């Protein structure tokens, strides 16, 4: 599974990244995390508010920092 975190590098994006790493550890799933930081690339996902979470090329959330529990639900 490929997980992408879209964000220009602000503190919320880093929070989301930490939460995602934690969620993956908790579940023990096999996943690659990619960070997308260029605005134009972020736009290609149609996301207007960062941070956003993309799982297997599908935007699952944008504009907020998800909690670890919420991320785990998306990962299952």
């Amino acid at each position, binding site marked *: 599974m490929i997980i992408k975190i879209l964000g220009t590098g602000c503190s919320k994006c880093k929070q989301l990244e930490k939460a995602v790493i934690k969620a993956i550890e908790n579940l023990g799933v096999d996943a690659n995390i990619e960070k997308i930081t260029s605005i134009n690339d972020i736009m290609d996902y149609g996301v*207007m*508010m960062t941070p956003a979470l993309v799982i297997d090329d599908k935007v699952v959330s944008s504009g907020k920092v998800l909690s670890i529990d919420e991320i785990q639900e998306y990962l299952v």
Partner: protein
Amino acid sequence: MKWKNEWKILLLMIGGFLIAFFMPMNSIRFQNAIMESLYMLKEYAQLHVILCLLPALFIAGAISVFISQAAVIKYLGAKAKKVTAYAVASVSGAILAVCSCTILPLFSGIYKRGAGLGPATAFLYSGPAINVLAIILTARVLGMEIGIARAVGAIVFSVVIGLIMAFIFRKEEQEKVNKQIVMPEAEVTRPLWQETIHFGIMVLILIFANWGKPSVDSGLWAAIYNSKWIITAILGILLGIVLNKIFKMKLWKILTTAVAVVLVYILFKGNPIFTFVTGIIGLSYFTSTSEGEMGDWFSSTWGFAKQILPLLFLGILIAGSFLGRPGHEGLIPSEWIVKLVGGNSIWANLFASISGAFMYFATLTEVPILQGLIGNGMGKGPALALLLAGPALSLPNMLVIRSVMGTKKTVVFVSIVIIMAAISGVFYGMIF
């Protein structure tokens, strides 16, 4: 050792060493500047932190948690009516731009996928300028008129700038990408009136707790000033009721805070600051230990505090050492400032708006910098010009804007902003 990776660190060390080595300890001007920066820090700590910044942080935190940003973005989509899009773009910065990380993605989103170039530039321009924290601090430190002029100027000019941009580039119809915009999901289901009451009370607390002593000792303003702590206390009680009834905060938590506040009031009679702080501590403790909305509110408030306060602290020290407090000189002689941005000439306004446009201001640091400049003889017009051009633009963000809409549009946008800011400065300087 790999010099390729280490040379920057070495350069920094050499720079730091040279500064320390040649520090002009005996120069009176230098000694004054150091003292000035500390005086200015103290002034902020005493006057602006507890009654102004702390409540403002809670308000900003509440905006980012309780207001549905998705509901606003919907008006900036590709199908939105033009008039609505401009109107929403010009004022929505107050809600959407509380975090700098949302401005640029939103701008390019509106430009490429949404309502188009005009509304996008309107948003880009007004967003940073009508940030709630920035307006509150501007009004508090630099005076009410300039705080209001900043907000109103930003909103009005953003629409004008957006329209000019859309007109100049009307032929370059943006090819619409078919891909749909992913709208952030609306999470907030709370009726608007409940949130309005919550905000209203917090804003009123901010206003009344900061009510300044009027110059005359009678009349309505003086009456309000004399009873400002009673009014603030009543508002505090109302806030407690709202938190309990609407946000379902447990009654014992609110009563505990209330009892603590009353105790501190009795112990430190005559010093309302302690009482106010106790209220804030109570609110912080019980929101931070709550789950759900209340917990989110605190963590977002705390996030802003962590993000903004260190930068503001540094900004105050630097502004203090370079410019000094009003009426005192820092490293830069006052005559220079008077020569460059004193009075209200077109040249002074233009200089202020150009330097503001290229300079980078970390959130809120424009306020102490301007305070220093005004105190050293900067005119009111140029001050507004700098406020209107400054936070919206900086060299680094011009580069990002350029990567989104190209060199030509960026140059036009920057020039329009500079010219408009200078013109509004001239007018403001003539009136006040």
